[in-house]
């Protein structure tokens, strides 16, 4: 085990100053996620435009450095992507946390991949895996949750 691998500079920095920690105005989709074991809560908001591109994404919630940094970096990377690209990135990230040694997607730039690979350290801490993946699972449920879609016109 290595604490330095878990608490890398970039995680500590995003944990302290999370990006997109707010509520998207006129969001089209959202979902809440929580981890009842530790009380972490996250609420992800998404605004998809007519071309199904993520115009804005944000989150509200509280949690540990790992979960806040994960939500922060996730929202940064997903913004501007199409919904299909977003799904590919999510799958790639969750696959890496679960078992894959590297990220496979070609959508991500190298320095984006470096940011996500910072979370590979949680593999050694099974109890903390959920901290890194909660916001990502919540994003999936927001994207799939068509019933909750809010009309921008109204």
């Amino acid at each position, binding site marked *: *085990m290595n*604490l330095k691998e*878990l*608490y890398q500079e970039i995680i*500590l920095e995003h944990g*302290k100053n999370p990006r997109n920690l707010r509520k998207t105005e006129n969001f089209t989709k959202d979902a809440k996620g929580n981890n009842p*074991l*530790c*009380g*972490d*809560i996250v609420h992800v908001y998404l605004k998809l435009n007519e071309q199904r591109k993520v115009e804005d994404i944000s989150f509200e919630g*509280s*949690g*540990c*450095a*790992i979960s*806040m940094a994960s939500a922060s970096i996730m929202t940064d990377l997903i913004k501007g992507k199409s919904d299909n690209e977003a799904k590919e990135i999510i799958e790639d990230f969750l696959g890496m946390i679960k078992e894959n040694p590297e990220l496979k997607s070609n959508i991500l730039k190298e320095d984006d991949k470096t940011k996500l690979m910072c979370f590979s350290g949680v593999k050694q*801490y099974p109890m*903390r895996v959920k*901290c890194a993946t909660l916001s990502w699972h919540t994003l999936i449920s927001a994207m799939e949750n068509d019933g909750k879609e809010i009309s921008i016109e109204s």
Partner: protein
Amino acid sequence: MNINTIKKEFPIFDKKIQNNDLVYLDSANSSQKPKVVIDRINEFYTKQFSNVGRSVHYLAVAATNLYENTRSSVQKYINAKDKNEIVFTKGATEALNLVANTLGQKYLEEGDEILLTELEHHSNYVPWHYLRKSKNIKINFAEINEDGEVPIENIEKKITPKTKVIAINHLSNVTGAILPIKEITELAHSKGIIVVVDGCQGGPHLKLDMQDLDCDFYAISCHKMYGPTGLGILYGKKKWLEELPPYQGGGGMIKEVKKDRITYGDLPNKYEAGTMATAQVIAFDQSIKFLESIGIENIIKHEKELIEYGQEILRKNNSVKLIGNPKNKGGVLSFIIQGVHPHDIATILDEDGVAIRAGHHCCQILHDKLEIPASARASIGVYNIKSDFDQLNESINKCKKIFDLK
């Protein structure tokens, strides 16, 4: 037994945990087990095993006697009037569910009120919440004060003519506040209110004297009292246990079963349906003997000194904020560090072999009230020593360094 050398009675401390000496500060969650208890389980399964209360063969009779011996030891240890006032359950959670369920079946009526406190563990809230749904019972909460305790005035304030039950913990698993059970019972009984005590944290840390406390029910968690998991105890005054209906149905709890009618067994069998946690019950006798060999007065004195020492050290540490400051306190020290989430604290401490708990400790109502999502908790047992808090403090400083705090 000398309390300063008690650690050697616990085999787990002989082992390195991830190359560290174990600093175990999670006893409010579950205590470690002394060798006598571990050995007793092994011995029972190796040499004496049989189911209890059913067969007439030699082993069955011997096992039944051992099982009932523990009941007598518990009766003596908690100063209950009658051996049949001791019911074994699968845990304190089941004990509290048993009380809520059977009171709901026979005693409580629509519109009745139950009074809890904001300190309650989910185990002493959720079972009552079921009655809110099924019987339209109202639940009120006595508030904590700024020190994280519930003074009797705060309880008195919330009593109404409809209050039928007060269900309260003996010692808070978050703030460590010790509630004045005896005074609360006196007040409650003067108004005809039943008192149910969640004694999970009281069990290992306080003197258990049912005649002095005079409560109607008291739930005990054996694995927090240096005993095995899967075992709890419900103490209930005989008049209540006799009057209330059974909780679960099955073998062992009946007198006569016909196609058109069933009559139930006498106490305590009425509440012990199915095969019980036999080995655990028999081993728990050793936990009682272990506690008696130290003496609860010595335990209280030792733990008071430890908690005061821990408080003193953490108060000196900048950016550590203790949760609650009760005058009468035992067992636990909960805290937060501004700028470091409790989960991160727990992971970093774990790297040094310091085991604490992080989260809401099954007390979401309390954490909502305190307006914090979670806290870190260091909780003690008889085996802890002052240097455990020195190590805790050192590892907290490591957290602060990683998170760049002053």
